[in-house]
Every structure is written in structure tokens, then in C-alpha cells.
């Protein structure tokens, strides 16, 4: 199997596993325990917390561990709204957010918040002027702007510094779901001083089941689950020190390798697009005209083909890719992201390739060949 679906989950890296393994016996305890074992676990947790926080220029006290990206997004959006229910809270977000933000925003609306969905252009970019207009009235109202750093389906990177500047000018708080770009893009606070940021370990070759919410000091949120005082009540429940150790190791690896990996990803992406385009003339590269795109992600559209059949043909050829968002039932429901970009449509297949540390030029050529074989052989033509 050639794995080109790192945006869904990037396999646990051996170095990460080694870091986690090395702490078995010294960190796999309950960090809340007051005995020596608990203190060791607490130390591991705190060390990991500091490392991850420093990746975005935050302090240890501003970093909360959660169960993952969805949990962090939900706490950010709903936690903001519930804290301010009596003050006519408002959420301004984009039409192409991950479901973890979109559904949380819809729930916030059901609970009484005003929710605004900003449009995107055909490359998937939010225009800071649109945000400015959306915030033009009601500067006195508590407002959270939530715009993802990089889109998981098509790879568009948003102009986060400009958007943060607009939000702060109107007195709004800014949250970014940074799950896809974390560890790859420059997210230091001096460049983009977001108030809330979501990250997760398993997109970086860390373990599944642990995420982070970076929360600038003074940003008050209401918890969504209730229990002990862990993570200062923001995400109570026994903490996961071994997971945190893995998360931190993965972040460290990503940052160390960034200089060498990113140009490589970019080259692979361009090679893949070129191979596909040569063989499939009507190929559409999504977000190609965006100012910035994730270097390790390529999303293409192929008109006149059947999505389900194409994905299965590629799967059976031994290549792991996706249509953009994972669903274990193989459902190929329309993409809200492509809808918002005005792309896609009937008999239109989407293939998303995403690379990780081990991806080679050979892998990418094999991936291209599998898609070309399926499409050019006219074997996956749409039924209609």
C-alpha cells in the first residue's frame, strides 16, 4: 500500500513511538496523583505542554490538552458563546470550515448566538474586507471570528495575519482551526496573534486521541464537559501524559524538518499535478490560484467520472487517497467546501493526495499512474 492520505491521519512516526516508549514506567500514571509516580507523569505532561506551546510562541499556561481537533474546536466556539449568552454573542466563521467548527457554530446558533458564514472566492480564500464588513456593526457585542488556517479538503491557506488584524480592530476574538498546517506553517504569535488555536497530534505523525487548544491569557471559555480540575477545567478528565509526550515529539520533529521537507513536498505536489494534467487534459487543480496552499496537499477534480468507483479503483490498485474528507462508509456526499468555491458538480470526482515525511517521488508517480489508469481507461466513466 502506498499511503498518500496524511491529511486524514499521518502514521505514528518511529521516533515518536520511541519517545513515548521511553517514558513507559515513568509517565504512564495519573498526573493528578500526589505520589511520586503521579509527579513523574505530571512532569512529562508539563514538559510536553511547554514544547508544544513554544511552537506557536505561547506559554505553558496558555496550552490545554484535549481529546483532539474536534474537541478543541467545540470548546473554542461553543465555550465562547456559552460564556456570553446574556450578551448577544456572535460567531463569524467561513463556509469552508471543518465540520467540527461548522456544526459547533450551528449548535451555537441554536443556543442563541448570531452566526455569520463568510463566503470564499473560487480558490477557497476568505477576503479580509468581507470580514471587515461583517464586523462593521456591533463592535460592542462579544464576537468570535473562527477561520481555519489551512483547508483540509483543498489546501487553501487563509490570510490569517490580515484576518486577525481586522478582527482585533473590531474588538473580536480570533480562533483558528490549525489542524492541517500545524508544525508546517509559521504560526508564531508575533506573526499572527490569534487568541485561540486548535491543533492535533495525529496529523503530524503523533498519536490519535490528543489535541491542543492554545488559549491566550484572558480568553474566557465555558467548559463543555464537567468533572475534575484537569486542564484548569477547560477539558476535565484524566490527562494523557504518554500521548502528550508523543504529541510533543511529533511537533519537534516537524519543526526540525520543516526547512528540508516543505520544498520537497512542494516539488512532489507539482510533479503530481503535472503528471495528472498531461494524461487528463480536463483535470482541475483545486485552489491552484490561491495565494498560498499547503505544500503537502493536492486536490484535483476530474469531470465525467464516478467518484465512488474511481476511489475504489485507486484503492484496489494499492494507493491510499481520499476524496477530501474521511467517512468509513465510503459515502461520497457533496463537499461543502467545493460548493462554497463554486467548484465540483454532477459526475465530478475529487481525489485528494497528501504527503508525509516518508513520501517519495516513486510513491507520487505510482499514485498518478493509478488515477490515470482508472480515468484514461474510461473505466470509471460516470453512468449518465
Amino acid at each position, binding site marked *: 500500500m502506498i499511503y498518500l492520505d496524511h491529511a486524514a491521519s499521518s502514521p505514528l512516526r518511529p521516533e515518536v513511538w520511541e519517545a513515548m516508549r521511553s517514558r513507559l514506567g515513568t509517565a504512564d500514571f495519573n498526573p493528578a496523583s500526589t505520589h511520586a509516580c503521579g509527579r513523574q507523569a505530571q512532569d512529562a505532561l508539563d514538559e510536553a505542554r511547554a514544547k508544544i506551546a513554544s511552537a506557536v510562541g505561547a506559554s505553558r499556561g496558555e496550552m490545554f490538552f484535549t481529546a483532539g481537533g474536534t474537541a478543541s474546536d467545540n470548546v473554542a466556539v461553543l465555550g465562547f458563546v456559552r460564556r456570553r449568552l446574556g450578551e448577544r454573542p456572535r460567531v463569524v466563521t467561513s463556509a469552508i470550515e471543518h465540520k467540527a467548527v461548522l456544526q459547533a457554530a450551528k449548535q451555537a446558533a441554536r443556543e442563541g448566538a448570531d452566526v455569520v458564514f463568510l463566503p470564499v472566492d473560487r480558490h477557497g480564500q476568505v477576503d479580509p474586507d468581507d470580514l471587515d464588513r461583517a464586523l462593521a456593526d456591533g463592535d460592542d457585542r462579544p464576537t468570535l471570528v473562527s477561520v481555519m488556517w489551512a483547508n483540509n479538503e483543498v489546501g487553501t491557506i487563509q490570510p490569517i495575519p490580515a484576518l486577525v488584524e481586522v478582527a482585533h480592530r473590531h474588538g473580536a476574538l480570533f480562533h483558528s482551526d490549525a489542524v492541517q498546517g500545524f508544525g508546517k506553517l509559521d504560526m508564531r504569535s508575533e506573526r499572527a496573534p490569534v487568541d485561540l488555536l486548535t491543533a492535533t497530534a495525529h496529523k503530524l505523525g503523533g498519536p490519535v486521541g490528543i489535541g491542543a487548544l492554545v488559549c491566550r491569557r484572558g480568553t474566557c471559555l465555558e467548559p463543555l464537559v464537567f468533572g475534575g480540575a484537569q486542564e484548569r477545567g477547560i477539558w476535565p478528565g484524566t490527562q494523557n501524559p504518554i500521548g502528550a509526550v508523543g504529541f510533543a515529539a511529533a511537533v519537534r520533529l516537524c519543526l526540525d524538518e520543516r526547512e528540508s521537507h516543505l520544498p520537497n513536498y512542494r516539488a512532489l505536489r507539482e510533479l503530481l499535478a503535472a503528471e495528472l494534467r498531461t494524461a487528463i487534459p480536463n483535470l482541475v487543480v483545486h485552489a491552484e490560484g490561491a495565494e498560498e496552499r499547503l505544500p503537502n496537499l493536492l486536490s484535483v477534480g476530474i469531470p465525467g467520472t464516478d467518484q465512488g*468507483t474511481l476511489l475504489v479503483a485507486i484503492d484496489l490498485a494499492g494507493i491510499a487517497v481520499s476524496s477530501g474528507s474521511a467517512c468509513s462508509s465510503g459515502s461520497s456526499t457533496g463537499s461543502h467546501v467545493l460548493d462554497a468555491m463554486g467548484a465540483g458538480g454532477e459526475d465530478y470526482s475529487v481525489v485528494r493526495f497528501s504527503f508525509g515525511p516518508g513520501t517519495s517521488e516513486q510513491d507520487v508517480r505510482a499514485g498518478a499512474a493509478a488515477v490515470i489508469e482508472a480515468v484514461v481507461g474510461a473505466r470509471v466513466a460516470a453512468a449518465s
Partner: protein
Amino acid sequence: MSVGKILVAMSGGVDSSVAAAFLVEQGHTVVGATLKTFCYSEIDGPAKTCCGLEGIADARSVAARLGIAHVVFDVERAFTDDVIDDFVAEYAAGRTPIPCVRCNSFTKFRDLVRRADALDCDGIATGHYARIVRREGVAHLARAEDDGKDQTYFLWGIPRDVLARLHLPVGDLRKPDVRAAARTLDLRTADKPESFEICFVPDNDYAGVLRRYLGNDHPALSPGAFVMEDGRAVGQHDGYARFTVGQRRGLPGGFPEAMFVLEIRPATREVVIGPRASLVASSLRASGANWLAERPEPGEEVGVRIRHGAAVVPAEVVAVDQDGFALELALPQNAVTPGQSAVLYRDEVVLGGGVIHEAGAPGQCLSPSASARRSNASRPSSERSFGTRITTRTS
């Protein structure tokens, strides 16, 4: 017979699990495919949670146990267009559809063939209780070894050219043997209870499905009169779509003998009831025919089954044309219901079938396009319909 790579439809039930296992044992390269036809969760929640549909999970688990690839094809839209919409329209028109026939005829087999071609599979296979027999080198569909389980009643509408590449590995077995094979292979589905529901009708609440698609105030779900054969009104019902020809339950009482639904008249919302003697028919007319063997000629003696699980009874073909056929039954049959299938057999071989449009006294249904005695049988012959009572087991 083609050997090699086979795409097997795996519903997540025991029959298709064992079908896949047998093909693996026979040395074929097997790809398991589950067609996702319907998302139950749409009824209840805002988010689709079909990722967890039990059938898909069971099929995946069995495929993993067998060491074969498993894929899911989302055919929800086609299934809705071809099967559910028809199901609803048929009830609204006072008939009683068989969605399984409709699905096999229009959705399942065509989709499998299309996907098999796309994935370079020579053959396709299902877990139906039916057999492929070869007569002078030509593949025919034949009744299952276990006549009590025979599912050919649901299969008469499949494309004829599928037969040459179709494998039905459990058609030679009896159900207990299938379960035993599944246990021997340690398949998770070995003791899964049999499904008697239509896949998109949870809890057999078909009126609930109709309400959802038609709305509460649709004529088919609105009050109307029970009338006798002479037109006398004898009570009120709460929607003719809740009734099917031959039904006893839910009728007004106070008659000296048991009463049955004889006819449904959507135009006036009347449900006609009468005694058992009025329920029997000796002739029938069917349309929307599909032939899986040489089309029979007028005068030919055939066997016919008018309901799933009913006996195959002798009949004479009195007329046959492009669209359908007319039969004289050797023995009168109860509740020959418009919308149900009439499936024709020569010995064990399925000749084909059609949808019953009219049933009547001897000689009444002389031609496939004869005028209708019953109002609910008068419909354009170009319109295909399929149906039977809701209590039939799924297929």
C-alpha cells in the same frame, strides 16, 4: 463459465458472507462490495451517521476475516430515485409494491455490473437462494435447492445478459447448511437473525415512510370509505395506502363471514371489501415483463408464482406481447394483487416475469393489454410497476 476475479455483493448478512467465502475457497480473486442504499439516520438526526451502519461493518469484518478487499459503493441517490420514489408512488396509486424486485431490476445488478467492469472483474456474485443452470451452454436462472428459501421471485427483472457472469454460491444449499458453513469459517454473521424488513422501512412501519414522503394530508393517507362490491358504504378507513388486496386486518366487523380487501380505488379513496369467494381469480394480466429465457408462446403451459413463498401453480399463456402477458390459471388463486409479480417457470428454470395489473374470472384477462375490470388496473402499459405485500421477506 468465466473464472477469475469476482465482485461479490455483501449485504452484511450470513448468506452473502458465505457466498464470498465459497468463492474464496474455490480459488477466485474476490472483491467484496456493499451497496449503501439508504441512510437510516437521516430520519432522526441532523448529521449522517451511516459510517456505522451495521451491515457495512459486518460485511467489512467478514471480508477482513476472508482476507479479501472490501469496498462500499454509495448508491443512495439511485436507490432513492429507482426504488423509494417508486415505492411511495405505487402506494399512492393504490398498489402494493415489491421494492426488492425493483432494486434487483434497476439498481443492484446494474450497479454491480458497472462497477465490476470498472474494476476488471469477470464475474459478479450474490448470496441469493437461486441457481444458475446451463442448458445447451446458455445460462439460465433456476429455483434454489431449498424451495422454502427460493428467492427467484425477486429476481425475474434482472438484466438477462448478467446471467452468463453471475455466480450464486449458496443456491445449492439449505439455510442451516449456510449457517453451519459460516460457523465453521468463524464468520461474525453466522448467527445473525434473518431480516424480514425492507431495508428502508425501519420496524416495518411503511405507513411512517409514506407519511414522511407524502405528507400526512395526502389522499392515500386520508380517510375514505369501505364499500361492498355493490357500492354500499359500510365504514370508514384512515387511508387506503394502509391496505392491500387480500388483507383481513383493520376491516369493519359485523358480517356473517370473514371479509377481505378486494380492490383499492385511489380516485375515490374507496377500499372495496367482500367475502373470500370474491377474492379468487383464475386469470391475470401482467406488464413490464422481462424475459430471462426464450419468451413463451401463446398456448404454452408454464408454472406461475404470484406471491413470494406461494406454490408454483400451472397456467396457460393465453397472450404475450412486447410489454406483458396474460395467463389462465389451472386453479383459482386467492388475492392475485395488482402490483405483485407474476413469475413464470418451466420446471426449475425462470422464464421471466411481470407485474400483475389485473386479475379476474376465467377468460377475463385474455390479452396483455385488455381493458381493466378493476379501476386500479387501468393504467398506461408503458408505466412499469412492481409490488407485493409488505410482509414479504427481503431479498
